C-alpha cells in the first residue's frame, strides 16, 4: 500500500491526502475528505462556522451594521452617560455617553485580527521549529526542547505584561507578543507527531527510492503530521482572543482610542455594580466569539481524530 502511494504519480490536489494513514472504511476516501464529509453533517460545526462567518463580515465592514463610527467626534454625548438599553439604542450607553452597540460592533475587528494573526504566527514558528527538531533530532532537538521548557515555565499573562509594557499597544503588537509566548505549544505537538511518523515504512521506502531530506520532510512527513497542529491551532484561536481581552482588561493590551472588548469591560468595571449592562454586552460578544471558534475547533478535532468517536 505504501509502495503504490509513493511510486504513483501524485494527482493534483490530492497531495495532502495521500498519506499512509490506515483507513477504517473500504471506500476511496482520504482522512481529509472523510473529515469534510463529517463536518458538513455536524450541527456544532455548522453553528460555529456560521457565527465565525458573521464575525468575519462584521469585522470587515462594521459600518454596514451601525449608523455611525465610534471614532466620530459627535459619537459620544456625555448627557447620555450610563443610559439603559432602549428601542433605539439596544445596548444602552457607557460612562462617556457612547453607544455601546456601535462600540461593541467596531471592537470585533481587533479581536479577529489578534486571533488570526497570532494563530498564523504560532503555527508557522512552532510548526517549522517542531519539524526541524523532530526531523534532525540530536543536539538541535535538545536545544530547542530545553528552550521551549523555559517558555512553558513563564506564565502567559505575566510574560505578556512584561513585553507589552515596552511596546505600543495595538492589535498587531498584542498578536506578536502572544505568538512569542504561544509557539512552544505547537512546537511540542509538531515535534511529537514528526517523531511518530518518521520511522514509518513509507518514509523508509521514500528514502530507499532516493528522495532527499527536504522532499521527504515536505511531501511525506509534513502532510501526515499536520492534522493535530491544525486541531490545536483552531481551538487556541479562541483562547488567544480571550488572552487579548485579558491583556486589554489589565490595561496593557490594545490602548485607547482603539476599541477592544477587553478595554470596554475594563472601562465598565468601574461602575459595574450600578450599570451592569455596559459591561455585559461586550462581555457577551467576547464570549460568543470565543465559543464560536472553540466549537469549530472541537468539531474539526472530532472529525480528524477517529479515535475519539
Amino acid at each position, binding site marked *: 500500500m505504501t509502495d503504490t502511494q509513493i511510486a504513483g504519480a501524485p494527482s493534483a490536489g490530492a497531495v495532502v491526502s495521500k498519506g499512509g494513514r490506515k483507513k477504517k472504511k473500504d471506500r476511496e476516501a482520504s482522512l481529509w475528505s472523510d473529515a469534510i464529509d463529517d463536518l458538513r453533517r455536524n450541527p456544532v460545526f455548522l453553528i460555529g462556522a456560521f457565527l465565525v462567518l458573521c464575525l468575519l463580515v462584521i469585522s470587515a465592514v462594521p459600518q454596514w451594521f451601525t449608523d455611525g463610527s465610534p471614532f466620530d467626534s459627535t459619537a459620544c454625548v456625555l448627557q447620555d452617560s450610563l443610559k439603559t438599553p432602549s428601542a433605539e439604542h439596544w445596548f444602552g450607553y457607557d460612562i462617556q455617553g457612547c453607544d455601546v452597540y456601535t462600540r461593541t460592533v467596531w471592537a470585533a475587528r481587533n479581536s479577529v485580527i489578534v486571533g488570526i494573526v497570532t494563530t498564523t504566527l504560532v503555527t508557522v514558528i512552532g510548526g517549522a521549529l517542531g519539524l526541524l527538531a523532530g526531523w534532525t533530532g540530536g543536539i538541535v532537538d535538545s536545544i530547542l526542547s530545553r528552550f521551549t521548557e523555559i517558555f512553558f*515555565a513563564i*506564565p502567559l*499573562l505575566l510574560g505578556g505584561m512584561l513585553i507589552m509594557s*515596552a511596546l505600543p499597544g495595538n492589535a498587531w503588537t498584542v498578536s506578536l507578543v502572544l505568538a512569542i509566548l504561544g509557539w512552544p505549544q505547537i512546537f511540542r505537538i509538531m515535534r511529537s507527531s514528526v517523531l511518530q511518523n518518521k520511522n514509518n515504512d513509507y518514509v523508509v521506502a521514500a528514502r530507499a527510492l532516493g528522495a532527499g531530506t527536504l522532499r521527504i520532510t515536505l511531501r511525506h512527513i509534513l502532510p501526515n503530521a499536520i492534522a493535530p497542529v491544525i486541531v490545536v491551532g483552531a481551538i487556541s484561536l479562541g483562547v488567544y482572543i480571550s488572552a487579548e481581552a485579558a491583556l486589554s482588561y489589565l490595561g496593557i493590551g490594545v490602548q485607547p482610542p482603539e476599541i477592544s472588548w477587553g478595554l470596554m469591560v475594563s472601562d465598565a468595571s468601574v461602575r459595574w455594580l450600578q450599570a451592569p449592562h455596559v459591561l455585559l454586552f461586550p*462581555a457577551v460578544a467576547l464570549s460568543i466569539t*470565543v*465559543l464560536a471558534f472553540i466549537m469549530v475547533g472541537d468539531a474539526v478535532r472530532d472529525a480528524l481524530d477517529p479515535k475519539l468517536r
Partner: protein
Amino acid sequence: MGRYLIRRLIQAIPVLLGATFLIYLLTFAMPGADPIQLLAGEKKADPLVAAMLREKYHLDDPFLLQYWNYITGVFQGDFGETLSGRKVLDMITEAFPYTMNLAIVAFVIEAIVGVVAGIMAALRRGKFIDQLVLISTLLVISIPVFVTGFVLQLTLGVKLKNEWGIDFFSPSFNEADGFRAYLLPAFVLASTSLAYVARLTRTSLMETMRADYVRTATAKGLPRRRVVVNHGLRNAMIPIVTFLGADLGGLMGGAVITERIFNIHGVGGLLAKSVYLKEGAVVVGGVTLLVLVYLIANLIVDLLYAVLDPRIRYA
C-alpha cells in the same frame, strides 16, 4: 528513584536560569521609560541623585554582569531592593501567602469538581448528564475569567446578600473571613481549568473503560465501583495529573486578574504594579518564584506517575 530525583533536579537548573534570564532581559534590556525618571515623577530627575542611584543599583554595568550579580544574590537569598529601598524579599513574602492560599483552594476545587464531573459524564456517555457537562464546560471555557469574576461578584457577592439576605460570599476579599473569603475568588480562578479537567477526565476515562482489563474485571464480577475506581480511573489519571501539575503554576500566574477583581493584595497584583513602575527587581523575583512553583509541581507529577502506574519505574 533517588538518582532519578537528582537527575531531574539538575535538569531543572537550566530551565530556572533560562527563565530568569529571559525575564531579566525583558525587564531591563527592553526600551522604555527610565526607571530613575519614573521614580522622580513628572519633574526632571536631579542629575546628582540619578547618578548616585545608577551607581548604587549598578544600572550602568554591562547587562550580563548585572544579571550575574543578581542571580548570585538570589542563590544567597538576596533578592535585591526596590528603587525606593524596600527589600524585595519582604514584599514578596508579604504577598505570597494570599496568592498561595488562593491557588491551593482553586486547585482543590478544580481537581475535585472537574474529576467528578468528568467521571459522571464518561460513565453515562451520551445521556443527559454527559451533554450537560459537555455544554456547560464549553460555555465556561468560552467566557473569559474576568467576566465570570464580575458576574459572580454581582450575583453571589451582592445580590445574594441584598435580595436574599444570605451574607456568605463577600464581593471584596476580607481577610477576617478566613477560608470563606477565598472560596468565591478561588472558584472564579479555577473555572476555566475546571472545565478542561472535566473534559480531559471524560475522554481519558472513556478510553480506559474500553480496555480489555476493564472488561475482564467486570467479567470477574467485581462491583461496579471497584471496576471504575481501581481499574478505570487509576489508569485514566495520568493525563489528568499531568494537566493539574502544569496548571498549578498557571493558577498562580493567572491570579493577576482574580486578585484585581476581588481586591486581593497577592503576588499577581504586586507583579502587575511592578511591571508598570519598572521595578525590575520585584518582577524578576516574583516570576522566579512562580517558575520555581511550576518546576516543583511538574517534578511531583513525574514522581506520581510511578504511583499511578507501577510499570513506570525510575532508574
